[in-house]
């Protein structure tokens, strides 16, 4: 949800930088029209789960946490001095101060003084009253911001319906470029910050995935090794058993059947695994790569291109010749084809070199 959500932000902000007018105006951003979530501000990561009602999250701030603390004061005789357990600037009295004034008539009179006439059309006021269903706890940041957000959303819906019924244009056309309250430079900063946060989240995700994958891979690897060791052990055991059996049955030579105790389940016991020397016939010690090419290029002395193809020293070649894992002591390098191959020594260059010195 998270990367997808932030992706929706970026196109909006990218489009904003085009079409400037007089340097300080911002182009109109096209909205995706799909839901998005704005980031919670306390830490980067906790983007909260979708709320059933809205699918959007209001923004929260660090400083707003405990703005008000209700006072658990002892009921005191003097009016406005309860003991407070305040942690922040604003504290409320536990009981209303006795000296407060509430001149209802005066208030209503003043209200009548300043209000606009009754028959003023709604278009002038543009005000909507929204019912707050539940009492909102001030200290619960998320609930409070959510309440404000719901109020705004509901209000806009009603207002738009009214405006739509009036037939006046109220939505911004896509080609309307005008000065915005926040400058383009500022919006660039905002965009930059959002990108940074998105990247951080993605990196964290990747790291976590890599860690998990490593764990799993390690487990799998250990399993494989165990399997191999077990198999090897079994094979050795079965050979021992067979030997013992033969001993016990006194090397009955005529018995050609000779139960083979090896359980040839897969029938592949004597063959080496294909993976180690792919494409090579068993018993071929020159390796698959040393085939015909040596015949052709070698006649020219093989000096054409750094010893030609046969002299290639790359990994593939070595693997196919020596098996996976590299050279095993450089003890035996000749194969059946190369034993009688004296091309390198025919020219006698080595002899000449020694004499010339």
């Amino acid at each position, binding site marked *: 949800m998270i990367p997808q959500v932030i992706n929706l932000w970026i196109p909006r902000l990218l489009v904003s930088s085009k079409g400037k007018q007089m340097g300080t105006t911002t182009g109109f951003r096209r909205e995706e029209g799909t839901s998005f979530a704005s980031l919670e501000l306390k830490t980067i990561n906790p983007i909260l789960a979708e709320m059933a009602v809205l699918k959007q999250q209001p923004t929260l701030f660090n400083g707003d946490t405990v703005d008000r603390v209700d006072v658990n004061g002892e009921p005191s005789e003097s009016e406005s001095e309860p003991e407070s357990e305040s942690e922040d600037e604003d504290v409320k009295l536990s009981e209303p101060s006795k000296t407060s004034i509430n001149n209802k008539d005066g208030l209503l009179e003043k209200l009548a003084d300043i209000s606009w006439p009754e028959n003023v059309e709604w278009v002038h006021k543009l005000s909507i009253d929204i019912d*707050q269903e539940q009492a909102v706890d001030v200290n619960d940041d998320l609930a409070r911001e959510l309440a404000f957000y719901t109020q705004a959303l509901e209000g806009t819906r009603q207002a738009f319906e009214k405006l739509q019924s009036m037939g006046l244009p109220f939505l911004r056309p896509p080609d309307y470029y005008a000065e915005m309250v926040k400058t383009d430079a500022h919006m660039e900063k905002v965009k930059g910050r959002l990108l940074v946060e998105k990247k951080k989240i993605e990196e964290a995700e990747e790291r976590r995935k890599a860690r998990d994958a490593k764990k799993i891979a390690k487990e799998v690897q250990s399993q494989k090794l165990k399997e191999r060791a077990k198999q090897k052990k079994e094979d050795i055991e079965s050979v021992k058993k067979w030997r013992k059996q033969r001993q016990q049955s006194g090397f009955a030579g005529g018995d050609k059947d000779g139960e083979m105790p090896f359980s040839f389940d897969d029938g592949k016991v004597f063959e080496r695994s294909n993976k180690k020397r792919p494409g090579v016939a068993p018993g071929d010690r020159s390796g698959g790569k040393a085939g015909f090419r040596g015949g052709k290029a070698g006649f020219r002395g093989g000096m054409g291109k750094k010893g030609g193809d046969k002299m290639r020293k790359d990994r593939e070649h070595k693997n196919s010749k020596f098996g996976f894992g590299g050279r095993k002591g450089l003890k035996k390098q000749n194969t059946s084809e190369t034993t009688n191959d004296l091309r390198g020594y025919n020219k006698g260059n080595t002899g000449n070199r020694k004499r010339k010195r």
Partner: protein
Amino acid sequence: MVKKRKHSEVTASEPKKKDEPAPERPKRTLLGWKDKFEEKETDSSVFRNKEKVLVTCSRRIIYRYRHLMLNLVSILPHCKKDSKVESKESKGATLNELVELKNCSSCLFFECRKQKDLYLWMAKCPNGPSVKFLVNAVHTMEELKLTGNQLKGSRPILTFSSNFDKNPYWKLLKEIILQIFGTPKEHRKSKPYHDHVFVFSIVDDHIWFRNYQISVPHNETDKVDRGGMDKMTLVEIGPRFCLNPIKIFGGSFGGPTLYENPFYISPNQIRAMEKKKKAGKFAKKVKAKTRRKMHEQSNPLEPDEFADLWKG
């Protein structure tokens, strides 16, 4: 005969001329041609919102509150920003004069005391009620976490929570806020479309303010289809603040007190209480010490068995 006809024609044309003065050129406005005659007829019954707000602050205001004030100036196109006001003696009279001078009908005055507390005065001038608020929880538009943006000067949609109708003082506050924060309809600097919404809601006896940008997928400028309404989302533009009403006065920056908030404690008092709590620390410590001494004297310990275990 011919003469007669001529005469009649002349007479016919003359009264005509008297009836209509030379048709004046119709007035030209941005929206088109406005006929002067129409306007004259309906002038008296049309309501025109001529609200103008003067926005000032006191001296020694700190950066955060200054930015808040500037943010408000940018989102209210019908306001005039004025220079700082000396906040000493009789600020009521000076401010009233200032408002008169600038030909404004209301005022937003930001008063910052001790470089810590911000008080906001909202007043309807010349003789309207005024309110003093304590402002908390200020977040300006410059914060990067507020990512929305709006047209400079577009008219906002104002939403009030329903508990504004519960008491007369809330009703009065709602009216004042409506008039100050609502942009007049055909103001010179206002832009035509509605792309942001103000939220004023009363939670815990405070007025909370939020400003959101409306983003709704649409193709035409005057219609949103059903699906579009459901996909409407709001992005916060800022600024944010929370108002705690202290007093409502009958006059502008003064006058009889109509309402006093019973739950209000001034920030100075709060700080004083905190200090008092901490003030008794040393005295308490000394007392505790003497108490301990008395206790020890009255309950002597038994002689220790191991006191002579180690010599020296």
